[in-house]
């Protein structure tokens, strides 16, 4: 039976090689779409912001910020920071959208902290660039919190560029700011900057600015009526500021929870397109079977001493091989040409094999409801499109209800599997998704094959 199945596979392969449509569906279109989409979305999955800093103080605490925190942000590639001589210049730069936010360290900032009066670090934001504002506020909050842990107090004030300083409430950066000098800082303003809003490929990055609500509130309390710290040695003050700056990254992209592990935009698109078109590619196996019936060759195959099972096996092997080759070529090509990073080979291979099996099963079941290749093609196209959309091949479904919806689709499981591999490169991390794909394949293939065999009789 296996020899006959291989003979049928070879024949089908020869026919497919001469049939240009399969090339288009299996290779050209998915790669082209991935390329086009990647051009459109390039860089949108990486968050960078522009900011300014105005140091009117020049004291040791201010230097802790300007010489410690800011260079760290720049070195991390997170921000491009410009120094301004005064607040007016910074506001103008924001209004002209040269920068998205600015930190203003007022004159006497270090002295006020030294005196235990509590300092005020103002964050100017562009209301139209809320994400940048959130992050800038978070950076300031994080710095303030660390100063506070040293027994000092800093309040962070947010203000929209163009508004009167200190009247920063509702500045559009996601939270009302503390009002006035020495007042309480908005504790939450920078605590949960949701980077997902700007991530073109849908990365829901949680920009953790390190802000601590209680600590920030404590900073305000300390500034208002907390214990007087007395004069500090400027050297100690400088050391405190330095430690605050060096305590660790003030902004980082969290290690995401497993459900939210995400691929970079190009990889997501490449994998999405590949698995989407995989469901069209394998239909050639099923429609090929119907084509045999339609063009009259099926009776001749069934009259040969090979058995119906050999015909089914040959068709399935052909579709499987084509799907596998298509996925492999697309993975390699997108990695080579578009810098997509699918993940470790072992895990990706497991997922690809499972996805091809799932596609075969689903399309076999759908095809079994058709009497002609044309009918099958139409039905399969509809199902492939619906499953693809549900699975989020064109845009990520996130972690909410849509995210759950994606799991009713093999496409969703495939992308989730790749996401899991991105979070944990061990090939075993792909097993849950691969298992789900295999279940899809088996649950649909068995009734599909039974229906087909009944149709032959």
């Amino acid at each position, binding site marked *: 039976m296996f020899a*006959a199945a291989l003979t049928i596979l070879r024949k089908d392969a020869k026919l497919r090689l001469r*049939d240009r449509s399969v090339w288009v569906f299996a290779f050209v279109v998915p790669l082209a779409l991935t390329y086009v989409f990647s051009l459109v979305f390039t860089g949108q999955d990486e968050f960078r912001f522009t900011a300014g800093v105005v140091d009117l103080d020049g004291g040791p605490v201010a230097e802790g910020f300007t010489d410690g925190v800011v260079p760290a942000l720049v070195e991390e590639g997170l921000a491009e920071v410009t120094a301004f001589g005064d607040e007016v210049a910074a506001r103008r730069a924001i209004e002209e959208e040269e920068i998205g936010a600015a930190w203003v360290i007022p004159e006497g900032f270090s002295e006020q902290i030294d005196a235990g009066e509590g300092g005020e670090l103002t964050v100017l934001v562009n209301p139209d660039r809320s994400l940048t504002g959130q992050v800038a506020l978070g950076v300031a909050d994080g710095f303030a919190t660390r100063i506070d842990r040293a027994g000092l107090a800093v309040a962070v004030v947010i203000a929209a560029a163009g508004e009167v300083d200190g009247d920063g409430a509702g500045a559009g950066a996601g939270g009302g700011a503390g009002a006035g000098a020495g007042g309480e800082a908005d504790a939450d303003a920078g605590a949960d900057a949701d980077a997902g809003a700007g991530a073109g490929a849908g990365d829901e990055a949680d920009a953790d600015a390190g802000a601590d609500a209680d600590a920030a509130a404590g900073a305000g309390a300390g500034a208002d009526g907390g214990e007087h710290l007395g004069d500090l040695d400027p050297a100690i003050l400088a050391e405190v500021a330095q430690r605050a700056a060096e305590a660790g990254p003030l902004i980082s992209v969290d290690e995401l929870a497993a459900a939210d592990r995400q691929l970079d935009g190009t990889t997501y698109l490449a994998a999405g397109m590949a698995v989407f078109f995989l469901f069209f590619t394998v239909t050639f196996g099923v429609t090929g079977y119907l084509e045999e019936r339609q063009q009259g060759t099926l*009776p001749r195959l069934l009259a040969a001493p090979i058995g119906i099972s050999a015909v089914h096996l040959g068709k399935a092997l052909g579709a499987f091989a084509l799907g596998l080759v298509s996925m492999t070529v697309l993975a390699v090509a997108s990695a080579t040409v578009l810098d997509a990073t699918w993940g470790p080979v072992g895990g990706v291979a497991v997922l690809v094999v499972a996805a091809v099996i799932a596609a075969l099963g689903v399309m076999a079941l759908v095809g079994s409801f058709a009497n002609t290749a044309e009918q099958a093609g139409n039905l399969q196209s509809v199902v492939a499109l619906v499953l693809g959309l549900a699975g989020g091949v064109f845009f990520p479904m996130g972690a909410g209800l849509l995210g759950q919806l994606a799991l009713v689709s093999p496409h969703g499981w495939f992308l989730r599997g790749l996401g899991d591999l991105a979070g944990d490169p061990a090939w075993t991390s792909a097993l849950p998704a691969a298992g789900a794909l295999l279940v899809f394949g088996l649950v649909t293939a068995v009734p599909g094959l039974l229906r087909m065999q009944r149709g032959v009789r």
Partner: protein
Amino acid sequence: MDAVLQCTGLRRAFGELKAVDDVSFEVGAGETYGLLGPNGAGKTTAISMVAGLLATDGGEILVAGEVMTPRASAAKRHVGLVPQELAIYPDLTARENLDFFARLYGMDKGGRANRIDRVLEVIGLADRAGDRAGEYSGGMKRRLNIGIGLLHEPRLLILDEPTVGVDPQSRNSILASVEDLATDGISVLYTTHYMEEAERLCDRIGVIDRGRLVAEGTRRELVSRIGEQDVVRMKVVGDASAAAAACESVEGVGSSDAEGDEVVCLMDAAAGRLPALLAAVGTSGASVAGVQVREPDLEDVFLHLTGNALRD
């Protein structure tokens, strides 16, 4: 007779429709056996069971002594099938088509190449063997279709209406090929609704109608069922059915049937009774526009046996 094919009590129904009902016949070694009947008579269902494409509801099929079922590989090796529809891959060349089916029949590499060359010569496609079948004329495709059936040197070749939709020249070529098969000693089961083909090719003929084998024998045996009667075919102007009914009252008329605008009568000594026949048509209100008198053929046999024309 050393039977290559023995069918006994074949039955197959599709729902309420009895497509084949208790059909029995044999095909001897080197014999060409024709299944003659109109479209829908059950010919294709019968040969589908013989070829192992379709399971029977009852009865038995033996091919070269092997029981034929859809899973009977041994029996299938003895059968070559030429389906009514072209069963070739248009995107493969003639040689690739033949090679594919040769592999399915398990032919070894050396024997395969020689046999393919031989078949290409037999079907007259040796010089076009490297061209894709889709580029062939209708006749060439038909010849390739037959060649694939012959490829593995079957004991029994089944040809299911191989000349349907074929131009006259190709048809003659196909009929000549089938005649050659007989001389090569291959048994042929040939289905057709063309009386002339059955008369030309078949050693024996089974007349099938509504799933039942209503008569079987050589052409001479079948025609003799009508007796020594002549066939009188009259083209009438008016109600042919009424004219046919009127003719039944004429002495010597065995049967009288309307076929379109014609009345066909089987009768003894037609020459002396023509005036009475014409008068009978006149009494029905119709008039006769033309008359033909001849000896009966298989068409008349079928009409006599079933009351229907072969091409109904």
